[in-house]
């Protein structure tokens, strides 16, 4: 395969996005779109530069740590829960409906209630983030463990296994590719969770900054924060991919030549 071709193919999504920016700028100027409807890229860039970098980074860190901590808590709860549900059909039958109920309740709608319940500190933000990331993680871990070939389970039984070993040596590794799919979904949801929590009650974070800017009618600044959020979200998604490639290379889907 030709190298330049590969490079071009890889750069294509980025180039597409980049080529939209001049179009956007031109459209804003030609049609004289008011900034509160759609600010031009140059206005957004200007607004971005007007805010000190340390302030941006402060907000970024505030959002990022809630998203990552909430995601970690969610992961730490969902994997043991998935193990329990795989081990026990009874638990699976009783817990699963409960999980579906949690999942189908709009978290955005119960966020204010959670603030009332837990106050305004870290606890409500982490709760909201964990709740929103929870479902894809449990479902992917459970599906992955149940997708273990029955022959492998028989082999482990024929070696007189203990159930813990069966989970640890066979089922959990088998769940890894599934779990990573779930994590890719969940990690972007974690950002949404953190932003929702900031909308409801916070004095820092990119979500808070979007709301703050909007209420002062600084629309380009809100757009700049929004852009920052999507970049963070993308970076986290990419981060999960990189982790998988580094530590679980075997679990990547096979590339077709």
């Amino acid at each position: 395969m030709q190298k330049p071709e590969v490079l071009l193919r890889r750069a294509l999504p980025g180039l597409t996005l980049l080529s939209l920016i001049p179009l956007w700028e031109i459209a804003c100027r030609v049609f004289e779109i008011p900034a509160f409807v759609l600010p031009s890229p140059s206005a957004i860039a200007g607004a971005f530069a007007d805010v000190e970098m340390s302030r941006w980074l402060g907000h970024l860190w505030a959002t990022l740590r809630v998203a990552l901590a909430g995601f970690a808590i969610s992961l730490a709860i969902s994997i043991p829960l998935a193990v329990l549900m795989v081990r026990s059909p009874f638990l699976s039958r009783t817990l699963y409906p409960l999980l579906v109920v949690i999942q189908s309740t709009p978290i955005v709608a119960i966020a204010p209630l959670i603030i009332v319940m837990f106050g305004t500190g870290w606890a409500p933000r982490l709760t909201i983030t964990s709740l929103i990331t929870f479902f894809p993680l449990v479902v992917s871990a459970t599906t992955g463990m149940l997708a273990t070939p029955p022959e492998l389970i028989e082999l482990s039984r024929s070696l007189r296994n203990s159930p813990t070993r069966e989970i640890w040596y066979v089922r959990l590794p088998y769940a890894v590719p599934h779990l990573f799919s779930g994590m890719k979904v969940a990690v972007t949801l974690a950002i949404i969770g953190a932003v929702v929590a900031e909308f409801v009650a916070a004095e820092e974070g990119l979500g808070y900054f979007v709301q703050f800017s909007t209420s002062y009618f600084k629309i380009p600044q809100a757009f700049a924060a929004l852009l920052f959020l999507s970049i963070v979200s993308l970076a986290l998604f990419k981060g999960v991919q990189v982790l998988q490639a580094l530590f679980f290379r075997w679990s990547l889907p096979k590339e077709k030549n």
Partner: protein
Amino acid sequence: MKPHVRFDNVSHAYPSENGPPVEAIRNLNFSIDKGEFVAVLGPSGCGKSTLLRLLAGLFEPTSGLVSVYDKAVVGPQENTGIVFQKPTLLPWKNVLENVLFPIRYKSGRPSSDDIAQAKSLLAMVGLGDFERHMPDQLSGGMQQRVGIARALLLDPEILIMDEPFSALDALTREEMGFDLLRIWRQRPKTVLFITHSIAEAALLADRVLVLSERPATLLEEVRIDLPRPRTAETIHERAFSDYTHRLRELIYQPRLKVVAGGAPNKEAHHAKA
């Protein structure tokens, strides 16, 4: 000489959610001597795999007794190695680690002896140069060789093989058959080999147990008196084709009777449908 493995009046039925239990095998009686290669031949879905799982101790028969050296098989057996239809290797472990899996699984750390044993088994199945490869880098036949090496790691007395070559293409399949015979000569085991290939059964086995359709009963035992070592030449011998004819007749006879209308198995057919 005491037989190594014995099935006495073994029947097995699976419970079904709606309706009566599904009978898989009925009143099986046979025995296998130590070091003997026995093939079990029968139509698809006739309960051959049940037989294998009973001997492996993965579950117990509804009635009757499965025994090894006159000791009832209760629970999974230490002295049996299993090769499955699909290689079922661990995709996250390399070839050597896959062969060592039973040791890792049982006791955690393989000794240097274990590793040497795994390496010599890999060399024996022709994969000496592939220790560090990952399973998805191997062809289906090579993966199944790893599966065979893994089954032999704990040096079991009994080797159970469940249609191990049925997922392979015809050429690889024939090659694997001869390789298995060579391995069996080097490491003599009592082998129970499940297959639905008539030629494979006749080529490999000392004795072929022909099973009926579900519920499986023993139609006949055919002793294959072909000289060993058997080679590609064996296939062209008159005696070999006589055996395959005989086996084919045994397999198809009951079905022909069904078509003709006077079937002993007719009811079973309806029950299945």
